[in-house]
């Protein structure tokens, strides 16, 4: 680690690094919270209000509201993951590369 000490100190003191991790951590935290709200919200809905989930989509239909909602949770899970990865792979990675470049790496 010794030959890196200078670059580590430089990165630590670079405000861009501080703002990058603050931004990324709050983004990851919000996304995690969203996922947990959607999933546990659905589970608690099942635990406490089965009747509502069994409501039919429309008159004369058999499909209940709970089914598109459940499939929606699956689709939401995929979409939220892809959205995070796209932002991290472009914006965050570019900023991290900039921080490394300024540290001479």
């Amino acid at each position, binding site marked *: 680690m010794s030959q890196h000490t200078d670059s*580590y100190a430089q990165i630590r003191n670079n405000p861009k690094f501080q703002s990058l991790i603050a931004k*990324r951590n709050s983004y990851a935290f919000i996304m995690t919270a969203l996922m947990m709200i959607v999933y546990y919200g659905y589970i608690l809905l*099942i*635990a406490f209000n089965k009747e509502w989930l069994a409501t039919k989509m429309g008159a004369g239909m058999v499909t*209940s509201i*709970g*089914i598109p909602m459940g499939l929606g*949770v699956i689709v939401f899970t995929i979409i939220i993951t*892809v959205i995070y990865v796209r932002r991290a792979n472009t914006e965050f990675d570019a900023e991290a590369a900039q921080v490394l470049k300024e540290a001479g790496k």
Partner: protein
Amino acid sequence: MKTNTKYILSGLVALLAAGAAMAAGADLGNTTKQATNWTAIAMFGAFVGFTLYITKWAAGKTKTAADFYTAGGGITGFQNGLAIAGDYMSAASFLGISGLVFANGFDGLIFSIGWLVGWPIITFLMAERLRNLGKFTFADVAAYRFAQTPVRSFAATGSLVVVAFYMIAQMVGAGQLIKVLFGLEYTYAVIMVGIIMMMYVLFGGMTATTWVQIIKAVMLLTGATFMAVSVLLQFGFSPEALFAKAVEVHSKHDAIMSPGALIKDPISAISVGMALMFGTAGLPHILMRFFTVPSAKEARKSVAWATTWIGYFYILTFIIGFGAIVNLVQNPGDFYVGGEIAKGLKGGGNMAAVHLSKAVGGDLFLGFISAVAFATILAVVAGLTLSGASAVSHDLYATVFKKGQATSEDELRVSKITTICLGILAVVLGILFEKENVAYMVMLAFAIACSANFPVLFMSVLWKNCTTRGATVGGFVGLIAAVALTVMSANVWEAVLGNPKGSAPFPYSSPAIFSMSLAFFTIWLVSILDNSEQAKKERALFPDQLIRSETGLGASTASSH
């Protein structure tokens, strides 16, 4: 047909070898043996022949410990995403979830959602940090700034315990499945899986294991897509029409459109949800896949692809379950014991997807799906064995016993010896547990992963005040709590130990909500009480660890070939 003959023959040779080794194989397990299905056996033989050919190619590329553990770090994000999906889409999730939908409709959907929601959590919190800090195993990450011996010993224990429970469930599943899918004996399956899996791992290491997973994932996704599209085609691609027919013919009628008995009390529901959500982020065979890609960018792409494929697959299993309702119930003569619906499906409730494959694609497609279902177990077991072998050779042997002084050759040799030991152990345990109830084992593996491996990994990477003492003590406390509470729950206390119904001291379906919280609390408490010199040093190392985990500075790169 001529080229196929070779593969069929190689498959038969493998089967005969297994048969000769274990001639006395009469059994009375949980499934009933069906008529020998030669199409399925031939197709499985073709799969084995092809994957062994790939293993031969991979063997030429597996020269160092890095090749063995991580395929030299040269897998792309897309490939790794398919391989992760392959690791995760087990026979239990294919046959089990479609069987659950077939039996209860809606409730099957709840289960598949639970299996999926761990992936965003891995993506947001773990993927790039794992890739930036780790090299071969998740212990590299957990022990990054800590005393190696205690944290590695814990991580290796956590890995091996999870691998053992997961493996027993897979081996017993293989034995039960072969009776209904191929019409062969239980012990054949267990020995055959043991031998073929050892060949993949021993000779081809991570390269072969990854490609076996990719091939299997593509076959499974293709087969499941074909089935779901066939079903939707019968109803002009109208889900409403499919559901309407299912409600009409299913014995539970409209009840299959609403949540039933799966979620009983909210605490169990949340607890099972936590085990699935955070357990996924603590499974050693999944975590080690993050070291097979060259960068954090590719690691993130891997999870995005894996989540997409797994989510897509679960939507397919839901359609397949409903397709099975409408197709099988109307032809009881072909699919039910004695042609009577009351006596249940031939081969048991998990066979819904397999029977549906015959209904929509005839005997040839039935053979294909049966072969895929069995290949699934084989591939998952190979992945588990590889991660178990890495825990022993990289964490215990190279780091704990040799204090980091082992050469790559030594480490590789120990991995291979461990692979053989684990293979033999898997076969022995598979045979020992044949008549045992193993239904709780996969959930127990998830409970341990979320209560021991995940908290240690999370706190060591994200909390600066975490120390060796806190991580080790907290990790073991979580592990013991998860096992103890599972033993005291109805799934083991009543169903396995035979105590009277209602006597289980722990009333919930999963320990996760308690054992995981306890682990986090213990790590926190022991760490803040730790004022040793070592603890001060470890806290001082956090800023540098943070820089590496966030920027990838100094992260290990792909080995050059």
